[in-house]
């Protein structure tokens, strides 16, 4: 009983630790700059407004004193960043799944030599910080014309997501009952059909979780995006937000841009959370 109470208290602390900064950012984004700059630090806006969002999305909105305010100058940068991030993240998710799912499946289900060594190599690549590979990537991309392109960024992101998904997927597929494919074969499926008709549907929760992880990893990626795409039309949201943060001293604007950037990953995680939760429950 005492242990249970302790676990609940620790969970509550972790929840506060995680949620409070996000809640605070959201509340700041609902304040006028005047209120944020003039009043003492406080949590809840005295005069809540969506003006920061309206201006960031290209509209005009009145200020705290009714003065008309035009669109935010950084709006196009942020909007373009969001769009680019979405495109890159979707491509990274789709391509990473296409590469990683069969690889993970093969590594977990097919008897092969050096399987463990292969898995360890894959994990080892995850320990290399992205910044360590930027110079070879940069040199390569200059030669191939991929620098400053979304294609280049998709490829760079896949060097992070593919090993990650292979590693996670190997564990997921390893958890499937060992005779599943054999049963499908006896029931009339070819090897490929057994994979498509049985293994994939039986692992749909795991695969959804893998896709969500790939999407969020790509959406959040900063180092490659900053080095390869900053200042180009292919700039994604994280470097765009960084530019805005360092160049504009209006925290309420930056807060609203941050909240806009939080929405897609939260939406994806929220939409698919029932699958992700099932992964935790049944290991599939």
């Amino acid at each position, binding site marked *: 009983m005492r242990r249970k109470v302790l676990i609940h208290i620790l969970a509550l602390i972790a929840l506060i630790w995680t949620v409070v900064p996000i809640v605070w950012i959201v509340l700041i984004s609902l304040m006028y700059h005047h209120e944020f700059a003039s009043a003492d630090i406080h949590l809840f806006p005295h005069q809540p407004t969506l003006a920061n969002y309206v201006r960031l999305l290209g509209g005009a909105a009145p200020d705290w004193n009714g003065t008309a305010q035009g669109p935010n100058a950084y709006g196009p940068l942020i909007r373009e960043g969001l769009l680019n991030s979405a495109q890159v993240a979707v491509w990274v998710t789709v391509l990473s799944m296409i590469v990683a799912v069969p690889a993970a499946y093969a590594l977990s289900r097919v008897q092969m030599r050096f399987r463990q060594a292969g898995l360890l190599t894959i994990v080892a690549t995850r320990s290399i910080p992205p910044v360590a590979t930027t110079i070879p990537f940069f040199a390569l991309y200059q030669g191939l014309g991929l620098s400053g392109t979304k294609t280049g960024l998709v490829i760079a992101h896949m060097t992070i997501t593919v090993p990650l998904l292979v590693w996670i997927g190997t564990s997921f597929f390893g958890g499937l*009952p*060992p*005779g*599943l494919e*054999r*049963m*499908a*074969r*006896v*029931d*009339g*499926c*070819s090897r490929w059909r057994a994979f498509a008709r*049985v293994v994939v*549907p*039986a692992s*749909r929760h795991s695969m959804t979780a893998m896709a969500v992880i790939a999407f969020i990893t790509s959406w959040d990626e900063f180092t490659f995006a900053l080095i390869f795409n900053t200042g180009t039309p292919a700039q994604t949201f994280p470097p765009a937000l960084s530019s805005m943060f360092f160049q504009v001293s209006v925290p309420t604007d930056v807060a609203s841009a941050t909240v806009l950037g939080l929405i897609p990953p939260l939406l994806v995680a929220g939409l698919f959370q029932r699958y992700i939760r099932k992964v935790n429950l*049944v290991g*599939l």
Partner: protein
Amino acid sequence: MEPEVLQVGISVESVTKRYGKAPRAALDDVDLEIRPGELLAVLGPSGGGKSTLLNVLAGLEPVNSGRLRFGDEDVTDIPAERRNVAVVFQSSMLYPHLSLRKSIAFALTMQKLPAEEIQRRIDEVAGWQRIDHLLDRKPHEVSGGERQRSAVAKALVSHPALLLMDEPFSAVDAQLRRQMRTELAKLHRQFGTTTVFVTHDQEEAMSIADRVAVMRAGKLVQVADPLTLYRRPASAWLADFVSVQPFNLIPVEHQDGGALSAFGGSLVLKPPGGPLPQRLDLGVRPEHLRITRSESSAFRILTREIIGGQVKYTITTDRGDELVAVRSDDEVLDADTPVDPAVDWAHALAFDPDSGDRLDVRFNEVVASVS
């Protein structure tokens, strides 16, 4: 309604299966005839080749050499999906992501049978297996026994030529296992589908099978009905393997006057009958070793275990030689009681000490006394 039964004989002809560069073949020149409608248990220790045999019969593993025939048809090169076999696997018996109804219907859907026919067959097998009310549940939403019955329903729904079962009851508790065993025997009686049942549990194999094929190290050691296997095992290893209680294998030496001496003279036996081979090991099952109180004996009771209505005694000499005897009478002897062992010669077996093969020796049906 009478079930549609397809009774096919299976021939395994000199089949060898080797995995990669493994030094030993998983199946080593195996010849086996499975009779139409027979329930054959394939029994053996781990690594004996029994699961490989099942996979080869199912078409899940190609053979290196030899032929397989279902009836007159050579199926050696026919893949699993076109062999018309059904398998109840040890680990995954149903699809975890599908309802029982969809799991059972899966093979029929793959055969592209009309929906009405699929429904008819599902209703049929669900009725036989008493799972009608569970069809819309997922496997994890039903009990272990219900899962087993559903798996058997799934296997039977496609009217297979051959039903293969790979240790299907190994994951359930002892009581349910006994119950499932009885149900399987009843079901086989009802359907008569040619069935191969793989198990490492000799009690399970002996209790349900028409015949038992024992495998060891990739080779078929003996194929016989359970009683023959028990009474006339091909080797000392097999006699021990199919024995419920530890098998007594006694190395004996000849003495003058036709007597046999064992354990450095602690045990002297006088078998009835004619001359015996010069060298032999005597095999005696615990239920055929009788013990009686005797103050002058070199043997004493070391342990006693009460098993149902029987008492199992381990008796020993000062040298540490041990024998096991089982008694069914009312008297229960205490530990340290001195006892004389006597052999029920009608059931005694003789084995070659070098090869372990059974020797064709028949002792007369006389219980020999101990001198």
